């Protein structure tokens, strides 16, 4: 068992009960902006009939990446924004889920190229991303290893052990397929010994599949945290990664021959009347669930409260998201808030009443809790940052856009999400994830 010591679990009210409901709305949308660096080239027009697995668009930069329809039905509209940028491709479901047959196969008996071909044609390939940069994997790369983080440590995160319990066959097939893609290891990282035993009982035929148990506070579930322990990324190296539901989709592609666009998400947060799990399809329009929200002035987030995207008015479940969080907006004033004990708020420090009840679940809103200041306090990021990296120095290197320093300070080993906790606890309220993302994007453009 690998223990992660640094980090913080933020306990919030509104975790999902272990109960699965089916949610089948009429509309589904794929948003090109969910994928870093993708420039879409449309394959369909409004009104076209599509099946599960029909290509909607591909990436101009990377001809090998197809984005396919999660449902069968009709293309309802292509929503464009400023400068005609494609914001989303909306498909209206006919409820039949007719799927294109890409052919069943035992991945253990296929070659690397055959596995890749199936993944790309079906659109499943988009679920496989790479580090550094968190872009979709490039088929011509040779990753040094593949990491599958099978658990999530974010606030109110879904319990993946509950989700994968009856999908073990798919996990097996998915792992076998991934094992074909790399000469290195495929790491399946879980958070309990029982899950590890259940996975090992599958008897993988590939020799390079390793199951690890991780324990510790968030960000233990982040890919970079796990990689930092198993095999830190060096300059020039590439690692591929995906998550529990992605490996199930990959497995189901080989088991059934169809693109598996199923997506289970936890509907969580203090403002959700009945937080449970929903089984739907990728890109589901969530507005049908809003009658389950108890108040008016809320923020609806696709993803978790640390890294998710605000989707009020857009209502689309993000491509990679397995959680929807609904929390109150915090657009109110607090008299002498900088001196108040703030028992009901969250703090990582020992500076207020809230410090005495760090373990209790809280209802947090979106208030910034202060004004934006220069970076002044030091030494607090290190407490929540389980990497052999100097976080403050790396943030500053990104601010001044010094590429050499960014490389030397370890930017290849991390992604913006790994700085989410630093951003949460920062008393200067600096937009740290944005700074790191811009740093990574600068590097990606310079390197290619």
């Amino acid at each position: 068992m690998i223990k992660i010591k640094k980090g913080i679990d933020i306990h919030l009210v509104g975790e999902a009960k272990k109960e699965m409901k089916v949610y089948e709305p009429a509309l589904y949308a794929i948003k090109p902006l969910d994928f870093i660096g993708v420039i879409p080239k449309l394959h369909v027009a409004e009104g076209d009939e599509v099946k599960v697995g029909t290509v909607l668009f591909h990436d101009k930069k990377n001809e090998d990446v197809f984005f396919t329809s999660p449902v069968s039905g009709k293309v309802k509209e292509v929503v464009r924004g400023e400068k005609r940028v494609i914001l989303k491709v909306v498909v209206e479901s006919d409820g039949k889920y007719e799927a294109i047959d890409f052919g069943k196969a035992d991945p253990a008996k296929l070659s690397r190229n055959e596995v890749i071909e199936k993944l790309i044609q079906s659109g499943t390939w988009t679920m496989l991303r790479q580090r550094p940069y968190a872009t979709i994997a490039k088929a011509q790369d040779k990753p040094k290893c593949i990491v599958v983080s099978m658990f999530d440590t974010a606030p109110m995160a879904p319990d993946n052990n509950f989700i994968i319990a009856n999908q073990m066959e798919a996990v097996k097939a998915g792992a076998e397929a991934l094992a074909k893609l790399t000469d290195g290891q495929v790491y399946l990282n879980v958070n309990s010994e029982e899950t590890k035993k259940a996975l090992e009982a599958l008897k993988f035929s590939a020799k390079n599949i390793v199951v690890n148990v991780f324990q510790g506070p968030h960000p233990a579930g982040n890919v970079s945290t796990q990689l930092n322990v198993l095999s830190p990324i060096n300059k020039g190296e590439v690692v591929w990664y995906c998550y529990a539901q992605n490996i199930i989709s990959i497995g189901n592609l080989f088991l059934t021959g169809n693109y598996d666009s199923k997506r289970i998400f936890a509907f969580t947060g203090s403002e959700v009347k009945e937080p449970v799990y929903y089984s739907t399809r990728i890109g589901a329009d969530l507005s049908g669930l809003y009658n389950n929200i108890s108040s008016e002035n809320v923020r609806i987030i696709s993803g978790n409260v640390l890294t998710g995207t605000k989707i009020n008015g857009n209502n689309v479940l993000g491509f990679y998201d397995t959680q929807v969080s609904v929390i109150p907006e915090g657009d109110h004033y607090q008299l002498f808030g900088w001196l108040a004990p703030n028992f009901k708020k969250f703090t990582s420090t020992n500076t207020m009443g809230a410090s005495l009840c760090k373990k209790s679940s809280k209802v947090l809103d979106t208030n910034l809790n202060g004004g934006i200041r220069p970076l002044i306090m030091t030494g607090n990021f290190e407490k929540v940052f389980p990497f052999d990296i100097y976080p403050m120095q790396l943030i500053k290197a990104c601010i001044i856009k010094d590429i050499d320093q960014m490389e030397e300070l370890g930017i290849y080993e991390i992604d913006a999400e790994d700085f989410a906790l630093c951003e949460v606890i920062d008393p200067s309220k600096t937009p740290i994830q944005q700074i790191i993302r811009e740093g990574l994007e600068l590097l990606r453009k310079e390197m290619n």
Partner: protein
Amino acid sequence: MGLRKFIDKIKPNFEEGGKLYCFHSFFDAMETFFYVPNKVTINGSHVRDAVDMKRNMIYVLIALIPCFLFGTWNIGFQHFSSHGEVATLMQNFGYGLMKILPLYIVSYVVGLGIEIIFAQIRKEEVNEGFFVTGFLIPLIMPADVPLWMLAIAVAFAVVIGKEVFGGSGMNIVNPALLARAFMFFSYPSKMSGDGIWIAEKGDAISGATPLGTLLNGGGVEQLPSVMDMFIGTIPGSVGETSKIAILLGALFLIVTGVASLRIILSTFVGAAALGLLFTAIGVSEVPFYYHFLMGGFMFGAIFMATDPVTAAQTNTGKIIYGFLIGAMAVLIRVANPGYPEGMMLAILLLNVFAPLIDYCVVAMNISKRKKRWAKAERSAK
């Protein structure tokens, strides 16, 4: 919520286009003093820690209150003692307040005035940093310092020490200490010697500080008792004399985590190490723990060395930084024939070296990473 309504009513005057726009930084400072703003997160994490810079800064002020109260009383106590009189608690305190309040008024009016003007020009919010600096400055001065000198020193420290670098968070040296250093080198007659540490001194006692006594060739036996130095009933800068008051503040800062325990401890260790070395080789007969009790050592170690902006920023760097401050302070005290006190200069010197210390610490991390890169490249071939 009458106050909120009032603020909302007058707010438009201070916004861009309003007739009082030139005071918008001041208005903003006042508004955020009363209310944590209604700003919400826009990107990145949607929830945030309830701690902010204001709280961190105010906590340093709270930690300084014992020093302020005792120091104010001690001004009166030293004054009346020097005239051979015995005064009541309130008389001592009242006399002290008469002396120290003008210092505070000058310090804040000059310092905050400059801060607000710069914030207005830069279109930024007013930083809380000067609340701490402005509170510290009178505490590290003799009570009798002329107000016009103080005004010049504060203006110099804020403009040259801080604003030219870009304001709070960007400065190289601690502005409060810079104000003191400015006074020390510009007006030495008002900042050193035996006569200046007691307000309107009478002739009943000599008025020398312990460090002054040592500098003039006095022996350990001529120093005040350890108990007096610990309680603080000795002459000196306003805030530095009472070690009990300082330790109360230190306890608060350490428990709340606002000040770095690493820096504080390593400063003490550094001073103890050099103090022990000097007594062992016979250079000095002053026991090492006297260095903690004399002069501004403890005040500096807890309230000045720990300034997060000017201290080393890496955890390892903080230990080196603190150790060198302690060692350097004792070295100056013992080996330097000119200045009795070494703490101010030691902290300023290490403020300047802190970025170098961090550079070396981070370079070690970088070289480790590059070795790993090289190894990976070799094994790939």
